[in-house]
């Protein structure tokens, strides 16, 4: 990371850290919290989908499993952090259930396996827990928004931080090598299976933690909701529009998503999913680097333009 | 009829062919020999359009082949028997042959072509309704060649027809190839089995590491010392 980037990130983190202390308005804190949730979700999807190149069509399963485990444990008396951890680990377990057999083979297995898993959970949870899960009275009484905000902030930082360190490590290099040319990587001694499973585990773990935070945050929700395919789609859409396979991409994607959605919901109710869907498809087909990639291209074009101007100037001066 | 001039070809960033130049005249049986990985199959792929050359020209009766789409090559009169035959194993022998005559011009004379192929390969007629996957190695190769002949090609490209076959079968296949050539089909034969190829061919080119390193008549090359020591030991 360059010094400029480090400075910028630090300032951003400080702003976010002090946000609830300065702006005491609940709706702003809620909005920021939502963005942070999406940052975690998109970033976790990105680790597997963007960096490891494995399309995960069932990310909602990991998210949902986290919500389920954490909600149940926390409401039955466990402390928060063990509950969150349990959510994350349970998500990893489900992920490996599909990942271990599916990753041995090439092709679509993993994607449809996770898709099927998410649907199984969605239907089963919907049938076995159809009632709203509400916080019991004593939790309601002690409910505070601000600590929850910090949980999400911490989680987002943890997810991004882990992604950053993973990507810049040897393991990260291996993961990306497997994405690009699995055969070549294998011949160099990089175990495709292990690296894919690693990316999967990290991805599922953070999705599960985010789910746990979700369960801690919401006063009342239908247990089936987090398993809905919309969560999967939103995650991959944010990662791609922002820039799949980059650290910053999911962050930008999450902000973009929340901001544009608020705007669209005002003007064109219900169209926002169609708009995002079309945008997503366009990005996958034409702009795989997302906004981050586009920005990079713009910078390069500008740099080229200024260099050409310099060359022209020096030529005219010479003559 | 076929002229390859200074062709370079790449697989991605990896250069596979350097300045390949070759010529095949009408009626000839030309062999392209060389060790494994020398670029023999690559050269064929460039001719049939499965791989586009980075530079150079390929002329066939005046047509510029490097500008022609892969599936149109057959219409021009070039037919290839790919490495391993690549027959459609789930389909019957007859269906495989019918597909060989897929192009409109060949479809019209399908029955005639079929009779011709059955003449050369009577075994195929015997097994015409069998699933191609149940054929033996030698029969598969015959089917692959027969299928290629169904389009009534002017130029037949053969990629290692002897591969994986027992010596007796190899002799048979090569005898059939000679016969096909005698009947007027020009042949470009890519082979690792150098002796057999050179005995058959009118002329031959030697390719190594993506470059043509020698050429001459079949007999001349057979007696050439370096060829003997490298390939005929």
């Amino acid at each position, binding site marked *: 990371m360059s010094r400029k980037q480090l400075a910028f990130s630090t300032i951003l983190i400080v702003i976010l850290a002090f946000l609830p202390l300065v702006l005491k308005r609940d709706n702003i804190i809620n909005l920021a919290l939502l963005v942070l949730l999406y940052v975690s979700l998109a970033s976790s999807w990105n680790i597997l989908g963007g960096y490891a*190149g494995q399309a995960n069509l069932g990310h909602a399963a990991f998210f949902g499993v986290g919500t389920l485990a954490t909600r149940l444990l926390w409401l039955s008396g466990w402390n928060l952090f063990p509950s969150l951890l349990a959510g994350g680990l349970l998500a990893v377990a489900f992920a490996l259930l599909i990942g271990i*057999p599916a990753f041995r083979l090439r092709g679509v297995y993993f994607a449809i396996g996770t898709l099927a898993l998410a649907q199984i959970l969605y239907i089963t949870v919907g049938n076995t827990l159809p009632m709203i899960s509400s916080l019991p009275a004593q939790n309601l009484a002690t409910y505070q928004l601000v600590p929850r905000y910090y949980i999400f902030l911490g989680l987002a930082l943890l997810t991004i931080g882990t992604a950053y360190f993973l990507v810049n490590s040897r393991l990260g290099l291996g993961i990306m090598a497997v994405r690009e040319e699995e055969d070549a990587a294998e011949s160099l001694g990089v175990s495709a299976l292990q690296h894919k499973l690693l990316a999967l585990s990290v991805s599922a773990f953070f999705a599960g933690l985010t789910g746990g935070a979700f369960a801690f945050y919401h006063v009342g929700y239908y247990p089936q909701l987090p398993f809905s395919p919309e969560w999967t789609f939103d995650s*991959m859409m944010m990662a791609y529009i922002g820039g799949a396979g980059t650290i910053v991409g999911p962050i930008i994607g999450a902000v973009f998503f929340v901001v544009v959605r608020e705007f669209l919901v005002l003007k064109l109710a*219900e169209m926002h999913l169609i708009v995002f869907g*079309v945008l*997503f498809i366009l990005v996958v087909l034409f702009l795989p680097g997302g906004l981050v990639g586009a920005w990079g291209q713009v910078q390069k074009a500008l740099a080229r333009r200024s260099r050409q101007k310099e060359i022209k100037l020096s030529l005219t001066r010479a003559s | 009829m076929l002229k390859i001039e200074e062709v370079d070809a790449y697989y991605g960033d990896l250069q596979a062919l350097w300045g390949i130049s070759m010529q095949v005249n009408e009626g000839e049986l030309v062999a392209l020999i060389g060790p494994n990985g020398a670029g023999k199959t690559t050269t064929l792929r460039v001719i049939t359009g499965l791989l586009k050359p980075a530079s150079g020209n390929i002329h066939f009766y005046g047509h510029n082949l490097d500008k022609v789409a892969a599936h149109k090559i057959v219409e021009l009169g070039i037919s290839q028997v*790919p490495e391993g035959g690549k027959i459609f194993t789930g*389909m019957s022998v007859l269906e495989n042959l019918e597909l060989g005559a*897929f*192009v409109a011009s060949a479809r019209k004379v399908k029955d005639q072509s079929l009779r011709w192929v059955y003449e050369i390969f009577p075994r195929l007629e015997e097994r015409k309704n069998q699933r191609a996957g149940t054929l033996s190695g030698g029969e598969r190769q015959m089917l692959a060649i027969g299928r290629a002949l169904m389009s009534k090609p002017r130029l037949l490209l053969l990629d290692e027809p002897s591969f994986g076959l027992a010596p007796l079968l190899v002799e048979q296949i090569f005898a059939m190839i000679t016969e096909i050539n005698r009947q007027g089909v020009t042949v470009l034969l890519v082979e690792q089995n150098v002796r057999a190829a050179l005995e058959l061919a009118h002329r031959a080119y030697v390719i190594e590491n993506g470059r043509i390193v020698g050429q001459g008549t079949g007999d001349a090359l057979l007696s050439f010392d370096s060829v003997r020591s490298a390939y005929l030991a």
Partner: protein
Amino acid sequence: MLEPLVQNLAFGVLVGALYGLAAVGLSLVFGVTKFLNVAHGELLMFGGYASFWVFTLLGVDPFLTLASTIIFLLLIGLILYKLLFARMVKLTESIKIQNTLLVGFGLSLVLQNLALRLWTADTRSITTLYSGSVFTILGVRFPIVRVASLVIALVTLLALDLFLRRTYTGKALRATVENWEAATLMGIDIQRVYLLSFVLGAALAGVAGCLVSVGYSIEPVMGLNWTLKGLIVMVLGGLGSIMGTFVRGLILGVTESATGFFLSLTYREVVGLVLFVLILVFRPQGLFGTKEG
């Protein structure tokens, strides 16, 4: 008594025919192009709505709407292929798989929400004069509409089978499935074969959708379920033959019914998916019949 069970199984067979039909469309496209079109169910859904609206607005008998629905879906398939999937044909294997899944997933969400926007989330169903008619054999009731659907599904698949086995184009398609390079050497234009298979797949989805709208009901969110049904049937025994896929569709239908009868409705909803995951976990080579799918 035995009767409720047999009744249940009869219903299972009838719906299984449609599962088989959905599966054939999906596997046709997958076999030829190696794209797994996860928006297949949405195409089916659109087929259902096409029939519904032609029936509702123009009063055409729903089985006759098959014609218009097929044409509609052929067009949609053509447009979607040219617009989206044609671009991805030339990509390298792993990126191609990844991107086609993503685009398909995105497409399914767009189509789903488009339908929601256009036609609301209400469940629709086609009711005609003969909708309630039933004929009874040995005490088991067979709704005429659903039996007709089974027959139509069967006929459609037989026609497809004939096309694939008797026509040159059909053989070209099968050849492409086996070995696209060899097919190219025969003069077969792979791009056109891909297009044809995709469009045919869409048409098959349309037929299935029409039959679903007549015998059952349709709603904008039904797509994913049907895509998964098709996937499950595909997976139950490899790519196989068309008729084989049809039979496996029947098997899935019957399995679901039996599960619902002996266990509960919840289990019935997920039994197929659970089977799918189990096959994936324990015998992944059983999926699609080949190791590489």
